């Protein structure tokens, strides 16, 4: 399922990558950015925690001309008022304005690194409202963001995950990912996968963890018997062709179904001895 997500989210999709202090999900986030750039999509990165050089070093050999970097790293709280993106500007109008800078037909992908930074300084209901409006308003095509789940109370992480259409939780050890996807029909898919990220940021999925339940195989009941229970093809055909008892011809069925006239239609069966002679004819009563 990880590869399906890497190929692209549906329109209006919101992906959250949850990580913790034991393993950072940033490389997974960069691999999503790289996959999007390779798909010729415009990506806007709103970065609070990582500088532009570090991001560009991580994303070497990718087509960077479609990447628009918005610097929220140098001065997020607006202390020096130098014109970088500040955290109070995280509202629909401002972010939509940023997204419109790239004039393309398709709305761009917005990557937020990370949402935890925003949640420390802006009230959570306002953040949720902004994300919902960005998702539904058509300003951005997809939203991908990083969330440090151990920085927030459980309720806040849960309420953000309710907004998301897909959540990837990177487990400790760095190679196990729990993926939850909510489809538009309301169905919820869950999966656990092992993955590893190579140096050029491609994700390699490994075999499923061995903790999965072994599949129960039903033994074929016709297998180890002393008599033959199987059917060959000719035998199966003959079985299908067998005329069942009480199966009438079409005319008789139609006549029975429309019994308004009261006619009796008799079709002699194979077992019927239709003798024209009445055996009682010679009775002398």
């Amino acid at each position, binding site marked *: 399922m990880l590869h399906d997500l890497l190929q692209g989210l549906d329109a209006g999709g919101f992906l959250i990558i949850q990580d913790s202090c034991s393993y950072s999900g940033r490389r997974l986030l960069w691999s999503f950015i790289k996959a999007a750039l390779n798909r010729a999509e415009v990506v806007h990165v709103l970065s609070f925690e990582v500088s532009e050089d570090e991001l560009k070093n991580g994303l070497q050999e990718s087509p960077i001309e479609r990447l628009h970097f918005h610097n929220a790293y140098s001065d997020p709280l607006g202390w020096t008022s130098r014109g970088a993106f500040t955290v109070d500007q995280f509202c629909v109008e401002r972010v939509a304005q940023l997204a419109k800078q790239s004039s393309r037909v398709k709305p761009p992908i917005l990557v937020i690194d990370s949402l935890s930074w925003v949640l420390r300084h802006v009230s959570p209901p306002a953040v949720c409202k902004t994300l919902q409006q960005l998702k539904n308003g058509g300003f951005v095509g997809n939203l991908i963001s990083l969330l440090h789940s151990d920085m927030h109370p459980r*309720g806040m992480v849960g309420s953000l995950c309710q907004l998301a259409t897909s959540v990837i939780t990177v487990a400790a050890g760095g190679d196990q990912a729990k993926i939850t996807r909510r489809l538009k029909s309301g169905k919820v898919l869950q999966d656990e996968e092992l993955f590893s990220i190579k140096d050029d940021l491609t994700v390699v999925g490994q075999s499923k963890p061995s903790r999965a339940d072994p599949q129960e195989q039903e033994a074929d009941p016709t297998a180890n018997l002393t008599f033959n229970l199987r059917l060959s093809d000719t035998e199966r055909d003959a079985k299908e062709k067998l005329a069942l008892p009480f199966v009438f011809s079409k005319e008789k069925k139609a006549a029975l179904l429309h019994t308004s006239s009261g006619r009796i239609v008799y079709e002699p069966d194979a077992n019927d001895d239709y003798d024209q002679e009445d055996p009682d004819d010679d009775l002398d009563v």
Partner: protein
Amino acid sequence: MADSVSSACKPSVERTPLNATSFQKKTRNKLLSIPGTRLSVQNGQLLVSTGVTSLDYLLGGGLAVGTVLLIEEDYYDSYSRMILKYFLAEGVVCRHELFLAAAQDHPNDIFQELPDPILDDVAIRKSADQPRLSCEPQDGLDAMKIAWRYQNLPKVQSALASSSRFGHYYDVSKTMEPEIRQAAKCHHFYLPEHPSQSSATHSPMLESYSALLKSIEEVICREGFNVSASMTKSRNILRIGLHSLGSPLWGDDLCCRDDPKHSHALTTFLYGLRALLRSSLSVAVVTVPSHLIQRRSLMGSIIRLCDNAIALESFKGSERKTSPLCKDYHGLLHVRQVPYLNCLASQLPDHKDLAFKIKRKQFSIERLHLPPDLSETVSRVSRAELAGAATVASACGSGNKHLDF
């Protein structure tokens, strides 16, 4: 609510064009006869079906008019949303009026997902010419090979008439046809369409909740659901569905913080809602994401403020993955509260362990029992351990060792 029900009014009988008789049942003048309702046998309240017949049974026959049903959402909000849709679909079939408020999805999207009712006697308006029964089975004769005598049994199709049954069944795999849905009057409240105005008075309720309460009050007054309204026109029931109250999209930080700033916003709203409902002919179903609310005392006061309360716990979101119950059921259902309405004691369900499963044509709530363990070991071992020790599963599937005679 009982004393308001006993006010005098004329019984209203809907004259359908195909109704051949002019017989009118002589009812006592004191009772309202509204389609889709019936009187409770326990305390004489006017009851409305929730759309799920097993849930009606748990709540003592149905939802009493003027009360609130609180549903604590399951982790992914799939089954609570399903029950809300059943509730609204039942309103469409019984021709009640609907009011739906949501902050996440537009109410029209939820209206389009309502399940299709399974109709034998509920009427739908088909095309004007009745299909001639004699020519129907020409195609159908080949369809039914063994049960062909039943081909011609007609499905009853009459013009639009109210259904006399209490509680219907719905087919979840299909959505309700637009003609049926548009026959019912729907009001909606979508929070992003109401820009927040800062209120002049300092009230403990948030602006979003105040706006919602005002909107509900306005609909009740305008459409005449007040009990004190004039009795000249026929009465109807208003079904109110409120989706995911308390979530951050309503502007409430109840779910986000451990000690929320607006801890009294939702409780004040529920108090006002219940006051509105008691004085009008309406029923409300409210869903709350209770798994996100960290303070259990707050959840307790929210439950106290609603009349009926149930909680859904689906197996998908919880940690009980290896339980053998996962195969048969989709989750557990807990009845948190059943109201006392004008009586001394309420009808509590006698079994407390309930589980639900959603089949295509029915949402069934059953008493929880573990299936019999067919393996040789007497003690109840969990399925995961059995699977580890298995050699070959027998054909019956559950036992893992051959029965040795």
